[in-house]
């Protein structure tokens, strides 16, 4: 990968991050009431608010406050949660692994299954299998993930008991070692599948369309004329088809995370989504603002990684 592409792309990321910090700062100061409420939540006492005013220099001019705010964030200080009694960063860090587990499982699931089903649909174009897959993909893409979660709970967990209803582990029957792992996987299965459905539907459609387009291209015709087997031809075409799809998947990081948050709420999965809901209920603004910042940075990084992966995989990309 050409290094100036990397530099140029990094140069785009920094202003975005800076803009994000300014946006967050503006929200804190534009919110109705005292900014100290946004910085400390609604449960602090007078002494705590006075402490915050001094710490964030709230009696200083605005530009100076912005600098203080940015300096704090750069040091990894996202403020303190009065509700939890410790730093926002540690509260979020504690919930992050559960969300990452859910999100990465769903992403692997949707990508692998999406490529498989999309290939299947393209191979049997206009045949019953293709029509069924296409219809399912249209429906799957339109279905809100939290609703799918509710329906899955009603159908597969509440009535039949095939899957656990809530949480990440069975609290009444704590396990260790391999049994613990199986317990987590059993709890993970339903939320991960539900979260994967939207992306799976999209990936299936994109792979199908991409392959059908590729089947008309000269390089595929040449491969077929050479007498390569159909599975060889498809593998050949997939490599080209996957490139733009990676970009689409990467650009949906924000949508995907918002889906994850809602699915977590449905399944009481102990990640960022549960934290978001409980912080909303307890009006724990520092945690909410910290989460917004972390999630935004995550989305920007996801886009960056996608672009770099694209540049690495596609030799035609040469940014000047």
């Amino acid at each position, binding site marked *: 990968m050409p290094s100036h592409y990397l530099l140029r792309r990094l140069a785009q990321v920094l202003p975005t991050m800076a803009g994000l910090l300014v946006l967050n700062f503006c929200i804190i100061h534009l919110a109705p009431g005292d900014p100290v409420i946004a910085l400390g939540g609604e449960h602090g006492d007078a002494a705590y608010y006075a402490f915050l005013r001094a710490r964030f220099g709230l009696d200083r001019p605005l530009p100076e406050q912005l600098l203080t705010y940015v300096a704090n964030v750069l040091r990894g200080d996202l403020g303190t949660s009065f509700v939890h009694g410790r730093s926002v960063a540690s509260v979020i860090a504690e919930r992050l692994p559960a969300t990452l587990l859910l999100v990465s499982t769903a992403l692997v699931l949707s990508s692998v299954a999406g490529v498989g089903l999309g290939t299947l649909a393209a191979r049997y174009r206009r045949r019953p299998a293709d029509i069924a897959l296409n219809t399912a993909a249209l429906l799957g*893409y339109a279905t*809100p993930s939290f609703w799918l979660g509710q329906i899955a709970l009603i159908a597969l967990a509440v009535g039949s008991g095939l899957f656990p209803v809530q949480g990440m582990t069975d609290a009444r029957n704590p396990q260790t070692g391999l049994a613990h792992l199986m317990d987590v996987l059993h709890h993970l299965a339903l939320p991960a599948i539900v979260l994967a459905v939207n992306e799976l539907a999209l990936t299936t459609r994109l792979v199908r369309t991409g392959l059908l387009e590729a089947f008309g291209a000269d390089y595929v015709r040449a491969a077929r004329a050479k007498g390569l087997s159909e599975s060889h031809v498809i593998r050949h075409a997939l490599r080209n088809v996957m490139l733009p799809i990676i970009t689409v998947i990467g650009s949906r990081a924000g949508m995907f995370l*918002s889906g994850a948050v809602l699915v977590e709420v449905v399944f009481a999965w102990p990640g960022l989504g549960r934290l978001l809901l409980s912080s909303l209920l307890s009006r724990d603004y520092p945690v909410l603002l910290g989460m917004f910042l972390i999630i935004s940075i995550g989305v920007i990084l996801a886009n960056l990684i996608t672009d770099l992966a694209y540049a690495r995989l596609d030799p035609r990309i040469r940014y000047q």
Partner: protein
Amino acid sequence: MLALGPRVSESRKRLFRLLHNGAGRIGVVLTSGLLAVALLAGWIAPADPFVSVGPPLRSPTLAHPMGTDDLGRDVLSGVVYGTRTSLLLAVVVSLLTGAIGIIVGSLAAWQGRRTDDALMRVTEFVQAVPRFFLAVIVIALFGPGLDRLILLLGLTSWPWIARVVRAEVLSLKQREFVEAARSLGAGHLRILFRQVLPNALPPVVVVVSLSAASVILIEAGLSFLGLGDPDVVSLGYLANNAQRFLRVAWWMAAFPGAAIALAVLGLNLLGDGLNDVLSPRGGH
């Protein structure tokens, strides 16, 4: 006036083709059906969605085809009025994003390199901010309300539209008919509004209908977290309320979510159909 004749018949032909396109037909039927429900909500809904009209948690019967909720309110009425809220939001946000997107996109394409660079930086930034989470923060701090939700989604959902407008205007700018208008002495604004933008609109319509679908999903998600406007019924609010009664009242969850899915499906299919019909490559 002379130009009007062929243009009208052209758009009539396009509508005809849209109705003969599989995805387009279902999209038109679903979207116009739900729009009719939204417009006629007062006549269709059997009851006020906020008023208790029967026993609580009653499964679907003839009197209450979608059952009743925990307070004995008619779920069908909630779904009808919730659909109205979702579509109202989608329409108003689409008008707002369409306007911003067209202005930003055509300015970027028309005004030369420096404006283009600046506007595209702004577009990239707005696109990078996760809309859903920004809405969560703003509603948490500023309080819920349909007005601020419309403003927020309108101000953050336009980048995709702006990009499409920009690309279209950039390519149309070089075409012969624009050159011809310019050589006839037409002014910049006149060329932009009379020649370029009308021809740039088809792909914009496609993107707007797809973006309206995402707006409906975002509103539903926010209301599901309890961040909806408390003064109006929304489909997400109904789904949120259903979450506590999943074990005993499946109908409270099933119908509101199905309405969201139908609205999103309708708009997506409409967008697909329009894309097939309007794009030059379409028709096969």
